[in-house]
């Protein structure tokens, strides 16, 4: 069974008396552990597509099945539980809570899960360690660089051991070296079996995925499978070229998937 199945997915918006079709009868399946990049020009429907998969929005028609479960059959509370236990989100602007420490940001999804509270801090610390930020656990977002903030966001997305990671332009606000660091983390997660759906408008970022969907006018114009470029190798090359002592980020391990 595919982990994501999309059937005739349509999303329309009413704007000033006009109907805009952001997604037009999209059909798609994504298998467990796939690393999929979603590309397309602005307004092509790629972010709308991600929001539908992430149950952050309701479709006008059509169905999304997550691990065989039709999301349109679920009520708001069940959708919240699905987001909490199946899905992890990484946003372009990180969306960390201000004036809240890194570890508290990472603990946030645990608050909505059945995980006993006594374990929250230890679990969050482990995820932070996994993205190389254990020593920054008590820092507030304002005290972290953009790359570090995104790594906290990734740790937060992984804290409930999701099956699917949804990332909307996760490198959009970062420089190229930091982008490579983030992509190498995604690469590790993919190797551990997490399904990744990544929206980007940068071809070199999409090149790290094994499959790329090209959206145009609300439809999938092209569904291309490719040999992914290793982000870890690219990072090492870039660092060597810059003469920086190579110190690649530690491989990210997600206990749920590496076990």
């Amino acid at each position, binding site marked *: 069974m595919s982990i994501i199945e999309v059937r005739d997915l349509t999303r329309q918006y009413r704007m000033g008396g006009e109907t805009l079709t952001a997604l037009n009868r999209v059909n798609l399946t994504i298998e467990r552990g796939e690393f999929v990049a979603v590309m397309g020009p602005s307004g092509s429907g790629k972010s*709308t597509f991600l*929001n539908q998969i*992430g149950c*952050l*929005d*309701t479709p006008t028609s059509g169905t999304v099945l997550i691990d065989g479960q039709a999301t349109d059959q679920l009520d*708001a*509370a069940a959708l*919240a*539980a699905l*987001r*909490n*236990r199946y899905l992890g*989100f990484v*946003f372009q602007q990180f*969306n960390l*809570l*201000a*004036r*809240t420490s890194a570890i*508290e940001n990472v603990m*946030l*999804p645990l*608050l*909505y*899960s059945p995980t006993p*509270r006594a374990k929250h801090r230890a679990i969050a610390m482990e995820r932070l360690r996994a993205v190389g930020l254990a020593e920054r656990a008590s820092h*507030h*977002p*304002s005290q972290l660089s953009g790359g570090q903030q995104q790594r906290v966001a990734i740790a*937060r997305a992984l804290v*409930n051991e999701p099956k699917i990671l949804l990332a909307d332009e996760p490198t959009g606000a970062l420089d190229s070296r930091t982008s490579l660091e983030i992509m190498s983390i995604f690469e590790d997660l993919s190797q551990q079996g997490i399904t990744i759906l990544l929206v980007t408008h940068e071809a070199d970022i999409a090149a790290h995925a094994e499959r790329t969907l090209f959206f145009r006018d609300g439809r999938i114009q092209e569904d291309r499978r490719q040999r992914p470029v290793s982000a870890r190798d690219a990072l090492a090359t870039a660092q060597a070229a810059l003469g920086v002592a190579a110190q690649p980020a530690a491989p990210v391990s997600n206990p749920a998937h590496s076990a």
Partner: protein
Amino acid sequence: MDASLPYLASARHLWRHPWQLGLGVLGIALGVAAVVAIQTTRASVSHAFDAATAALAGGATHQIIAAPPGVDEQLLARLRRAGVAPRSTPIIERTVTTLGDAARTLTVLGIDPFAARGHALAGAMPANLAFLTRQGAYANAATATMLGVAPGDRLMLGFSGGTIALELVAIAADTLPDELLVVDLATAQEAFGLAGHLSRIDLLLDTGADDSAEIERRIRALLPANHWLVAAGTLRATLGRLTEAFHANLGALGLLALLVGLFLVYNAQSFLVRQRRELFGRLRTLGVTRAQLARVVLFEALLFGSGGTALGLALGLVLARRLLRLALQTINDLYFHLQVAELQLSVPVLLGAALLGIGGTVLAAVPAIVEAARASPRQLASRIAGERTAAKVIRRVAMFGALLIAIGSATLWLPSTSMQLGLAALFLLLLGGALLVPPLVHTALGVLQAPLGALCGHAGFQATRAARRNLSRTGVAAAALALAVASGLGIGTMVESFRHAVDAWLGQMLRADLYLSAPGSDDYASGGALDDALLTALASVDGVAGITTVRTLTLTPPGDVLKLTGYELNRRAFDGFQLLAGDRDAIWRRWQREPIALASEPFARKRRLAVGDRINLPARAGTLSVEIAGIYRDYGNGRGTLAIDRALLENAFGPIATSSAGIYLSASADLRAVQRAIEALLPATGLLHLRPQQAIRDASLQVFDRTFLIAGVLRDVATVIAAIGVFAGLLALALERTREFATQRALGQTRAALWWQLMLETGLLGLLAGLCALPLGGLIAIVLIDVVNVRAFGWTMAITIPWPMLGHGLLLALGAALLAGCYPAWRLAAQPPAAALREE
């Protein structure tokens, strides 16, 4: 760069947040409305008072007044013979009431139509002088309509000395004041038992003439003992001054409402600036200068201020109509009769309120303007930097609050009797207390975080954290809410303590079982309806064990108004005096033997008299010198009263009509049977009122409650302003946190959990603001009771803690905050996370 760009960008932002814009403007409007309403009421009352004074003075420059029984009539002839006062008008002025249940108060003015030719009242006199011969009277058309009479109809009116029958013979011109009946001087003298005496002589002196000082000296030389030459309107001006304390209290309440309003204006302004930090940052990056940004914020403040002020002026005038009715009621209950006043639109009041509204808004926007102008483009674009600045501001404001409390406390300790200084201290304490609310709430939230987290799970933990984190934004709304609730509690505690004290005082003071009273307590007349024959008849009614009587007299030496009460007491009635100083038994032993007096607490305080001091009173012949033997509690009269024995009073001033009698029943008597027997003895005019003790007590408390209706209305206005402020604050904050909540929902927070978190957050804020309001309200009550009221009225009382009111105050704060949180919670929960994440 196009100079209009920042204005356009700002306008679009505001247009997209109409709720916030509307609520901000409404906050200003309500604050301005409270001030306009109160000041317009005060101006209208003053205007009515001045108009009545001027009309009754009839254009006279001076008046000759005298101690009771009044001005010697012979003086007029002496003045004219001496040629010092060719234009002099003898006047008798008395307050009367219509008979029946809905008694109206009127003024009867007795004039000599031939002597009054130069007098302004003569201008309104009808050509028909029939009133000279037939006990006739004239009035203007409005008064005749009010009384339901037409020319030819008869009128029965009551005063303390009895009844007076008049016939309306003509309708005067409208220039004659309302609620005034003019009769011939001789008719008035006869009816009021003032043969040979006048209330006053109105004089029209040429004050610009070189010899005016000499003329005044010659007039004074002609005056008998206890007669005084005073500037016209002196007496009424003295009466007018009595209401100053009342007016000042009103003004204080209005300022309180404005203070709450200004807090909210500040709140709205700082929100609007903080919300646009990123926009301002971008504009700065694009080349907009600091001065240009400051001008944008200033322009907005001016625009808000103007809009809110215009709305506030209109609202204020509507509110003023209601307040004016309440204020007139209070003045008529407590001080003197004042006819119905029209709402007076005073340009200075309206301009002042407009200046306060617009100026206050601009002033409240200053921190926001400084913040927008000072920060660098990078800082402006960073929300975190904004938070750091705000946190620093909270700390500074808290220190400033502590400083204000210190200054306010020091002001209270100053050895002064100034009520204004007392009110100033109260405001410093209030403002200081309000500024301490945000840091106190911050500390409390820190302490509550762990226990609430354990109690309510993640919602408790998150709510305390979020409430604490966002206090730089919600702190001002919390302070305004605390201030409004504290004002309600403080005023409520004061009123409740006062009511409790008055009730206890009435309980002790009203010793008789039945009271028989005549209308008009300040008239000087012998005989009257409650005459000796009637009193003797009452004493012989079966079941009556004893009778006490009260006679009152108002003395008006220049610049003063003294109420003198002559009591014919038994020991039981004497024990009704709640003595604050003096030995009860020793006073009772001396009561009917020596010239001693009991001074009411306000009387003693205002004149700084202590037991053992002597006071000299202008008597009919010479001076009455009495020793203050005791000071008693009296909430019945703000002017102060001097109580003496009846014989002492009548020896000094001649026979005076009994204004009321207390009837004591024997233990076995049936109250209703005695009441019926006494009613059968009373004249059929309906002039005398027989009421059981409980009815007097109830009526007194009714008057009391009416007096404080105004306070209630203004307290409600302040609470509404605060509730709107909290709503506006929480709404703005919730909208600002749209993305934060959307992120939480993306991470798995359910709608119910979001509701629960927001309700907990706003509830905590309301509850803590309410808790802060308790000590602040207590402080207001203590200052109002122990400082302001003592200085204003001379009344002391014990503080009664109204426990249910404290609970009510807490619930009010909690309810207002929860209600204010409902809409933002609903809005955030209803919005799909995807849409919320897209929002800026």
